[in-house]
């Protein structure tokens, strides 16, 4: 297939995502002046025995797309037809992959909170699973570090350390440890383990002397050339290159798949990161995306700490998930934290057994309302914990000297403070079974609100069929199509959450609001610990309706313009509408008595229509 030229007139796009269990294909067409998702097909992934050829699963998923769309995409030899003509073929074919365990990396740097953390950010941003971070000050003895490197067998290692012109000793020391470990790649033994060196340029020669004969060494620009700045691009590009060259090329069938595709095959999480960055850039917004799976939870964010340059971060919480890892969520969050979201009592012994049975039989689904409420309570905690990890990771650069004024001393800001700011966050996007398949969309909205506790005005959305990976890689070839389909077909717009930040000692009004809804202007007062819902829907083309709003928080409460200051803004609607959250921030259920907690939970659930009313009143 001829490689795609961005200037080509693209009418039809076929994209696949080869997951570890399912291969998903989507077909996008340009009709009536806009790009829209036509159909979606899926088939089991065929990387493992007995098939051992990923393209079989791809062809099966594409065949389903053919059947559903009536467009002929495969010729008699089972090859994708290109370019498109009438109802035959596609102009572009692209793919992402996380099959075979994705991209597993180990990163190393000199100081854990500085160069090693920058290296970790580079690897995570490229879509890798970071198996371990080795640093001179990670409190392990050298022989323990060597054992660890040898034991883990990563797909590649990213080595950084030192600013340009700085010390060479420590980074060479780490290189010596890697050489002593003599690491072997995870897949195949016919090639040397790729190691990317992205540290002090002054140490290139000694590092090369130590490592050249033992590993396949690549040199790229220093990812932390000066303390004040990260330069992650070159390292990320090299990771993608090596992913294609080594990891993908070793996996069965990928050579063929790579020859079909019009753009490099990207690791799935790397592609999700790209679409979130593209959207944030296009609309000039700050966004957080979360994908909660059975085993892991990924969090992506774009914030603008200096109000200009967007900073992207991704974290993977490897052991927070809803089936394989559900027991770990329970262990990390603890029973009382999960149960605070449940408006009735359950026996601990029985609960623990239920959790473990879900872990050993991950495919079962909640049949009763009680089970659903409990499962969603666990999900809130999994999301909350994953977001805490993300906040701790998405920080301003550590180790940078800051000039302080007397005002800073009162603000208590420090080097390494998180850049995650819930007040400035514009959009929260959820995906993964428990959010996308919640029986009522309100449940997904409340799970996200309770777990992330957005402040001020925040738009909420879910990715209903998880096509963010395909759209991510599409941004590389046709960004216009990617963003259009993302807004209109990928996202299910839930609406907006308005949550004044602040706390009150006693019940009373915390905000007045005037909202010009299409059905008429609504004015009212939000009381402390109250939740309300207002209707504001979606337009015919899938985009949300909008409404002007004036928010007047009481003294001590902030809607984005400072405590007590009036905010005029535009609200976006969705299938739920506007959620007014008067529970204050920081929000802490533990300050309520047991009786108050249960009564408030029920009130909120009834007001937002989260669960059937009779189920709430029964208990």
């Amino acid at each position, binding site marked *: 297939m001829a490689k795609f030229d961005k200037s080509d007139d693209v009418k039809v796009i076929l994209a696949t995502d080869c997951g*570890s*269990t399912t291969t998903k294909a989507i077909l996008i067409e340009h009709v009536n002046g806009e790009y829209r998702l036509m159909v979606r097909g899926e088939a089991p992934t065929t990387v493992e025995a007995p098939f051992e050829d990923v393209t079989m699963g791809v062809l099966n998923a594409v065949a389903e797309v053919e059947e559903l769309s009536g467009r002929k995409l495969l010729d008699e030899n089972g090859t994708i037809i290109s370019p498109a003509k009438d109802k035959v073929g596609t102009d572009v074919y692209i793919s992402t992959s996380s099959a075979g*365990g994705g991209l597993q990396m180990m990163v190393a740097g000199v100081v854990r909170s500085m160069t090693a953390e920058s290296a970790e950010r580079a690897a995570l941003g490229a879509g890798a699973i970071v198996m371990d971070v080795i640093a001179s000050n990670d409190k392990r003895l*050298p*022989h323990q570090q*060597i*054992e660890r490197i040898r034991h883990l067998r990563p797909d590649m290692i990213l080595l950084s350390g030192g600013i340009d012109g700085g010390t*060479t*000793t*420590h980074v*060479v*020391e780490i290189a*010596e440890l890697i*050489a*002593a470990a003599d690491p072997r790649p995870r897949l195949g033994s016919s090639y040397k383990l790729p190691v990317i060196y992205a540290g002090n340029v002054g140490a290139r020669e*000694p590092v090369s002397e*130590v490592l050249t004969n033992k590993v396949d060494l690549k040199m790229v620009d220093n990812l932390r050339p000066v303390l004040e700045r990260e330069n992650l691009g070159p390292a990320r590009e090299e990771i993608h290159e090596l992913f294609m060259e080594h990891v993908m090329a070793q996996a069965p069938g990928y050579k063929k798949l790579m020859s079909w595709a019009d753009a490099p095959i990207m690791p799935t999480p790397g592609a999700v990161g790209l679409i979130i960055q593209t959207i944030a850039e296009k609309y000039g917004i700050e966004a957080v995306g979360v994908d909660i799976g059975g*085993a892991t939870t990924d969090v992506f964010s774009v914030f603008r700490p200096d109000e200009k340059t967007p900073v992207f971060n991704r974290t993977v919480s490897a*052991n927070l998930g809803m089936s*394989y*890892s559900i*027991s*770990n969520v*329970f*262990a*990390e969050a603890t029973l009382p934290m999960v149960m605070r979201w449940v408006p009735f009592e359950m026996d*601990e*012994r*029985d609960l*623990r*057994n*239920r*959790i*473990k*049975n*879900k*872990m*050993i*039989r*991950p*495919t*079962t*689904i*909640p*049949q*009763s*309302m*009680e*089970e*659903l409420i409990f499962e969603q309570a666990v999900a809130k905690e999994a999301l909350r914990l994953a977001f805490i990890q993300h906040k701790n990771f998405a920080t301003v650069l550590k180790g940078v000297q800051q000039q302080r004024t007397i005002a800073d001393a009162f603000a208590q800001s420090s080097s390494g403070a998180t850049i995650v700011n819930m007040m400035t966050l514009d959009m929260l996007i959820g995906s993964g079974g428990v959010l996308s*398949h919640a*029986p*009522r969309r309100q449940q997904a909205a409340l799970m996200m609100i309770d777990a992330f506790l957005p402040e001020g005005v925040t738009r909420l959305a879910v990715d209903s069929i998880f096509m963010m990976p395909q759209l991510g890689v599409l941004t590389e070839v046709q960004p216009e199509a990617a963003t259009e389909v993302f807004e209109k077909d990928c996202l299910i717009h839930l609406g907006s959450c308005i949550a004044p930040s602040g706390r009150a000692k006693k019940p009373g009004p915390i905000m007045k609001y005037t909202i010009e809804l299409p059905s008429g202007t609504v004015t009212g007062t939000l009381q402390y610990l109250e939740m309300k819902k207002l209707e504001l829907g979606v337009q015919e083309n899938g985009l949300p309706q909008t409404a002007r709003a004036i928010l007047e928080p009481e003294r001590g409460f902030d809607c984005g313009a400072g405590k007590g200051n009036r905010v005029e803004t535009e609200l976006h609607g969705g299938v739920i509408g506007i959620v007014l959250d008067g529970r204050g921030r920081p929000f802490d259920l533990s300050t309520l008595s047991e009786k108050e907690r249960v009564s408030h939970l029920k009130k909120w659930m009834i007001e937002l229509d989260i669960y*059937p009313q009779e189920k709430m009143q029964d208990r």
Partner: protein
Amino acid sequence: MAHAYTPGLKVTERVLVKKRRILPLKGEVIVKVGDKVNPEDVVARTHLPGNVVPINVANKLGIPPEDMAEIMVKKVGDPIKEGEMIALKKSFIKFFNTPCEATVDGTMESVSSVTGQVLQRGHPIPVEVKAYVQGEITEVFENEGVEVSCYASFLQGIFGIGGETNGVIKVVTPDNKAILDDSLITDDLSGKIIIGGSLVTADAFNKAIKVGVKGVVVGGLDDKDLRDFLGYDIGVAITGSEDIGTTLVITEGFGQINMASKTFELMKRHEGETASINGATQIRAGVLRPEVVIPAVGEQQAVKDEAPSDMSGLVAGTPIRVIRHPYFGHLGTVTSLPSPLQKLESESMARVLEVEFDSGEKAIIPRANVEMIED
């Protein structure tokens, strides 16, 4: 009466079991094809490279790293002994010479003139791989390990803890429904693999560890008890390396749940025979289940394989067991399989089936929440 088991989990009276026994690194195989082996026999051995112990000689002797070559007494590859001099900083007066001594027995791994660091490699660590099951060597992978094969009764559990062990089977509960409590654990069970019914209590398991029981195979276990005797919560189901002295294999799930009759009967038939068991479990891609292998001995070896059971999907009449609340553990028979998606009480849309429980009660259950049962 129906006998339950999880789809994909084997419970077989007779099957050819092949176990690959592979070294972590290349080494020496000490048996040959056709050799008969016992579980404790060593079949292959190797040496893992010794631990690396660094020592910063430049710092210690107060010299610049570039001068390392001049002061080193031992070269890369030289054998060293703890306390032996590896470097010497000479002074004008011999009395003031400063030595640097090796801190381990082994060899010199590397000397760096950039960092001044010397890596010493300790002596290789011997590793042995045992046969694990009684059987015959059927294949030798040169320098890597062997395949041991035997005809055996074979059972996979759903969850386990503890590693490989072996012992003589002893059934200690009267039936598959009884609870295995501490009154059933007696001193003479030392070295045995004991079989219980629907649940093992914390007291019973603790007593089993105390008297030296090698393994416990039981229907269910309370997660709270598991946490109590492990001392921590199992977050992710990756087990096998717990060091508690007794291997545990759960056949059905967490909580009190009757051991499948087929499993219990199989164990009963083989009481007094030697079994090899392993609690290692991994519930992820590349799933690994705990197992019990009871190799056939003598004439039993000549008997033919059991025909594979016919498990041709759910149909009306298929006996099933429910594996999630609110009917967890209930046994029944499928009465119909409506094809359109149906709304559950949780309001999820799912494919369901109608079941009649053994008590006569009828219910609608999502298909994802049942297991087929084998007669």
